[in-house]
């Protein structure tokens, strides 16, 4: 049942503004892809076009081999979970789950079996007779999933599926969502602005910015090897360093890709002791220490650089906790570095990296801590 999705040169205009530019995306059958990006990046519009709730101005959307961009929503065979779940308040749980089966003229007895199986799948068996308004947020989420999956859709779309839940429930549901997706093998495209969610649930993450896709890859690849400055800065914390003559400023490590440009060094790639393998040590002065429980985050000023370097380390690995004003030696842990592609459409305007130290604003610290 599960199918491949292919988006080709999708362009969308909404009331005169271009929301999506020539978007291409291929989602293999049975995989879980997350569209991740800041608000206004076009991720929700992409989802609405797939579902048939918004019209494409140009381009094609293929579900399997069937073009669906011209079909009305009710003929697309796609399950959709809304951000606020959109459960029908006048119906019971079972009637909500059964809703798609009524449109498909499934006989009554078979409907009952399918509803029971769907409720079993989301681990809420026996809740069928309840009115939906009597459910908790987490239960509503599960019922919304059951309703979207009961008819065996070719594709499942999730719009900010966990945004309405509190933090603990969100973490449980991340695991649950992934389990349900694996069990049913349904091709799934989710939209989120929460990078932790994207990285932990998806087979592939598509980072969107300004109506384009910046990079599509596995969670580890997009984090470890961001393709552009935007991706590097959007995911986690990033130290952006200039590259000259194929070597990184400060650490002198060789860099793949363009000989001149910018590269990213994650805070956890910097070590305080002499254990690092690559390049010379850099002496820095600690300007800020943030204890985060499992991690210790330092800001360290280096001569000749406007912005301090961010360092993330495990407290237990150190002989003593550094204090503000301490001199420390930093080394890079080693690994492959590469030059980033600059993005023209990014919200973070970046000056020419060759012109000197990395400019202000180059180090962004989103809410998501280092993994």
């Amino acid at each position, binding site marked *: 049942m599960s199918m491949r999705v292919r988006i080709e040169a999708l362009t969308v205009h909404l009331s005169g503004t271009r929301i999506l530019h020539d978007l291409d995306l291929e989602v293999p059958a049975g995989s879980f892809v997350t569209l991740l990006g800041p608000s206004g990046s076009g991720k929700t519009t992409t989802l609405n076009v797939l579902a048939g709730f918004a019209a494409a101005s140009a381009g094609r959307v293929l579900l399997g081999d069937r073009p669906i961009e011209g079909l009305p929503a009710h003929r697309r065979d796609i399950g*959709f979970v809304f951000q606020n779940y959109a459960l029908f308040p006048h119906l019971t749980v079972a009637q909500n789950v059964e809703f798609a089966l009524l449109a498909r003229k499934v006989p009554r007895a078979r409907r009952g079996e399918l509803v029971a199986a769907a409720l079993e799948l989301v681990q809420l068996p026996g809740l069928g007779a309840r009115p939906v308004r009597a459910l908790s947020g987490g239960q509503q989420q599960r019922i919304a999933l059951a309703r979207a999956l009961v008819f065996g859709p070719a594709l499942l779309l999730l719009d900010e599926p966990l945004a309405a839940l509190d933090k603990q429930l969100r973490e449980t549901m991340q695991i649950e969502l992934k389990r349900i997706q694996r069990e049913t093998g349904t091709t799934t495209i989710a939209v989120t602005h929460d990078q932790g969610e994207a990285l932990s649930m998806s087979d592939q993450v598509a980072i969107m910015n300004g109506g384009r896709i910046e990079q599509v890859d596995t969670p580890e690849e997009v984090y470890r090897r961001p393709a552009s400055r935007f991706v590097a800065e959007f995911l986690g914390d990033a130290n952006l360093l200039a590259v000259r003559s194929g070597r990184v400023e400060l650490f002198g490590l060789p860099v793949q890709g363009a000989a001149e440009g910018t590269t990213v060094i994650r805070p956890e790639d910097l070590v305080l002791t002499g254990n690092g393998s690559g390049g010379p040590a850099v002496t820095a002065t600690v300007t800020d220490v943030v204890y985060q429980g499992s991690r210790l985050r330092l800001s360290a000023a280096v001569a000749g650089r406007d912005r301090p370097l961010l360092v993330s380390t495990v407290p237990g690995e150190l002989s003593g906790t550094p204090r503000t004003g301490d001199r420390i030696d930093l080394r890079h842990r080693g690994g492959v570095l590469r030059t980033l592609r600059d993005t023209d459409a990014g919200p973070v305007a970046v000056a020419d990296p060759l012109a000197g130290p990395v400019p202000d604003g180059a180090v962004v610290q989103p809410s998501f801590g280092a993994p």
Partner: protein
Amino acid sequence: MTDRSPAPLRRTAIAVSVLGALIAIFLLAPMLIILPVGLSANTFLRFPPSALSTRWFEEIFSDPAWRAGVVQSVKVAAVATVLAVVAGTGAALALRRLRRGRRVVRTAMIAPMVIPQLVLALGLYLGVRDLGGTAGIATLMLGQAVLATPLVYLTVTAGLSTVDPALSRAAHGLGHRWPSVLLRVELPLVARTVAGASVLAFGLCFDESVLAYYLSPPGQETLPTRIWLAASQQASPVIAAVSTLVIGLAIALMGLSVALTGTRRDT
């Protein structure tokens, strides 16, 4: 809570309450006069009545002319209400989907509320005559439906604003065509509002007097027309008694409408 609010605020609250009470008394005063007059034992309209009795109320129910008026009013109002509810609810549901020109259509929908009823009555009368017919009870039903449609439209629109638009999209996405979405999701969610709006529309049509006066053929008068005719011929307290009944019905319908739309919001 109130004793904690600053003194100027408390003074404003008192002033507003007093003003509100005065306005309410002014609006309700005619009823305070009509009720005792209707209960009068006198033969002529007189306030205050010298003695009380229920003879005029009894007369309404025993006089076939008054009974015919009540029956006629109920008939006309019922048909007009059905027409107005279908038109107003349909418009409210349709306009929600309209992307452009919503304000223009909305204004057109509300227009009957501001057009003088006399103009509407005359227009209907002449229009029907030009089409080769004679204005009669059917014309009156149509005219009252036009008057009640904006009321239904506005009430249902207000009710729909509390219904999440994602519900309709969810129903479409789950494979239902629009008639099915309408029947299974949209109408059930506004059913109480539509019921409340129907009650209000019925009340409006039942009391309606201008169109009824100009369009009802002789011998088929509705209750308001009959009151008007009776008042121009005689000054009997029976008029006050009938008015009391009409006002009582209006209050009862208002209460019913509030009870239907006010409690338990489906969102």
